[in-house]
């Protein structure tokens, strides 16, 4: 540690001895780091949006079902707990939001067409926090109460069914005895969604209307809970676990939609691989720079050894030089990445390729997401790998014999 100030001073001065080479290397490192962080932010933003969209369709971070419901989502597998009892268990428990709903597969029929859909019987007040539908942007109106008799469908579905606000449609599903349960509803609203596919596949009626149509009393099929962040749902999960009947099945969102959960894990791995790949490209330049820097001062290294500096200090000096180079490059790259991502926080319109994005489950606006953890990961990986990349030239420099190094020509 005693040698650190003198080694750092030497390393810093030697770094700027050849300005041009250092600036070129710094540019390469900065652009590489910028690319690491910027591309990660774009991909994170895309995956983040895909997951949020995916969760918004579920919707809910933690869900409670009858044990067989996820395999057979019919009213036979319902939760026979009434709203009053649920309210007692959850209202004062400190959840960000919770709701109970009826969710079953159904068929919607207009006078012209039929389509298979997911029927959601909801309490609109309780679902506001969960829904992917913005109540205020609905053409016509959204459901107004838990016993509203209207139906709200997506605009795309309305086009398919050739129907509109004010017209009647019929919803059909199965009751607990596997008999046909159907009922006519008047279309009171048409919603739009980020993902056009959602407009085609979801139909909203009130919870009471659904319970009545399906003849299930005050039972529901799903109780859902919202946490603060979809990445950190364990506290919500634990809270639900403490307050729910053990015979029911409690699932995290990524257990309900394993594709989304896997995507999140893959994304973390992808970021690391992306950072390492870019660094490997950078490392050739870094090692070359260090080898050149050592080569052009062999005599000076010999002089330092002759004056009594130990080989370990020479090793340390070259490694510090490499770390300083990387640290400056990282700082510039970080600032550059932050400065280019900030103006894009409002979203990048990629509607030109929206259909292709939709096939991947992503929306047509990309919101870059800069996570500090990704930035830290990029910085730490570059510094650690940079350290190892510097070892070879540093080791070679420390192995010189003073006499041979001092008398080295050229």
């Amino acid at each position, binding site marked *: 540690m005693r040698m650190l100030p*003198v080694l750092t001073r030497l390393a810093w001065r030697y770094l700027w001895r050849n300005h041009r080479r250092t600036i070129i290397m710094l540019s390469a490192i900065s652009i590489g780091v910028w690319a690491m962080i910027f591309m990660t932010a774009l991909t994170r933003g895309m995956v983040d949006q895909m997951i949020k969209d995916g969760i918004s369709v579920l919707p809910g971070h933690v869900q409670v079902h009858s044990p067989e419901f996820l395999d057979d989502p019919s009213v036979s597998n319902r939760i026979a707990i009434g709203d009053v009892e649920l309210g007692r268990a959850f209202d004062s428990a400190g959840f960000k939001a919770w709701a109970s709903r009826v969710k079953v597969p159904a068929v919607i029929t207009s006078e012209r067409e039929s389509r298979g859909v997911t029927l959601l019987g909801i309490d609109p007040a309780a679902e506001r926090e969960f829904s992917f539908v913005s109540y205020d942007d609905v053409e016509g109106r959204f459901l107004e109460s838990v016993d509203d008799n209207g139906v709200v469908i997506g605009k795309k579905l309305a086009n398919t069914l050739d129907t509109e606000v004010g017209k009647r449609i019929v919803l059909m599903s199965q009751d607990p005895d596997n008999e046909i349960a159907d009922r006519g509803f008047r279309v009171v609203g048409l919603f739009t969604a980020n993902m056009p596919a959602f407009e085609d596949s979801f139909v909203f009626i009130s919870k009471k209307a659904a319970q009545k149509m399906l003849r299930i009393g005050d039972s529901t099929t799903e109780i859902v809970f919202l946490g603060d962040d979809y990445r950190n749902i364990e506290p919500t999960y634990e809270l639900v676990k403490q307050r729910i009947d053990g015979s029911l099945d409690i699932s995290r969102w990524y257990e309900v939609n394993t594709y989304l959960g896997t995507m999140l894990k893959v994304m973390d791995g992808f970021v690391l691989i992306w950072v390492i790949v870019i660094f490997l490209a950078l490392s050739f330049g870094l090692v070359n720079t260090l080898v050149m820097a050592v080569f052009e001062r062999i005599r*000076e290294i010999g*002089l330092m050894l002759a*004056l*009594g500096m130990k080989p370990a200090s020479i090793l340390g000096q070259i490694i510090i030089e490499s770390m300083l180079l990387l640290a400056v490059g990282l700082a510039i790259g970080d600032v550059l990445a932050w400065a280019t991502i900030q103006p894009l926080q409002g979203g990048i319109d990629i509607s030109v390729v929206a259909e292709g994005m939709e096939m991947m489950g992503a929306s047509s606006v990309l919101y870059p997401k800069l996570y500090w953890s990704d930035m830290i990961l990029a910085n730490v990986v570059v510094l650690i790998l940079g350290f190892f990349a510097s070892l070879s030239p540093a080791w070679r420099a420390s192995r010189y014999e003073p006499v041979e190094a*001092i008398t080295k020509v050229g």
Partner: protein
Amino acid sequence: MTAVRCVDLCKTYRQGDQDIKALDHVSIEIEQGGFVCLSAPSGGGKTTLLNAIGGLDIPDSGEVWIAGQRIDEMSKGALADLRLSSIGFVFQAYNLIPVLTAQENVEFVMQVQGIPAAERRDKSLAILDEVGLKGLEGRRPAEMSGGQQQRVAVARAIVSRPALVLADEPTANLDSKTSDELMKLFTELNEHHNTTFVIATHDQRVMRYAKRLVRMLDGRIVDDIEQDAA
């Protein structure tokens, strides 16, 4: 007290197909406070002997003793410590670290020794004044003449008052006036601080200052005479 003792040193270099005997059974003893000039034509072995004494080069056979310690069997780390604490070096060329200023170059050895900053500063400024470089403390080697650079190197070699100073052609790049000044400085240090000087040179003016003149030829000591210094 014996400052340097070399016993039967041999060192052979391979140059192409030829073996060159740089040291051929050399033995020499130098007392503390000695002022010795090693003189030889190029390739005569004086630099090799100087390097062996300084622990920079290990002889093929024989023994090297510095202040009672046998150094030819020491580890690299121990040799580095010995050079740092007891030996000052002045080389013919490439003497300074180009990215450091004159003052920083002088402070370098003290910094490696772990001497506190204030003490380093005081000593380096005083020694630079002593070698006639007052006002040039902040200059880098590239901004100084060859003579000024050599004086910085001398200042660095003697600033921590080593017991032994080894100088290889210290006046090679200096004019006669600067050479004389440098040699007078060496003489003064030798007399006042009892510092032992071993100087490899073929400069007749330098030899005049030596108390003892050792002539070498083809790796052997051919003449070893005491003389009255100038």
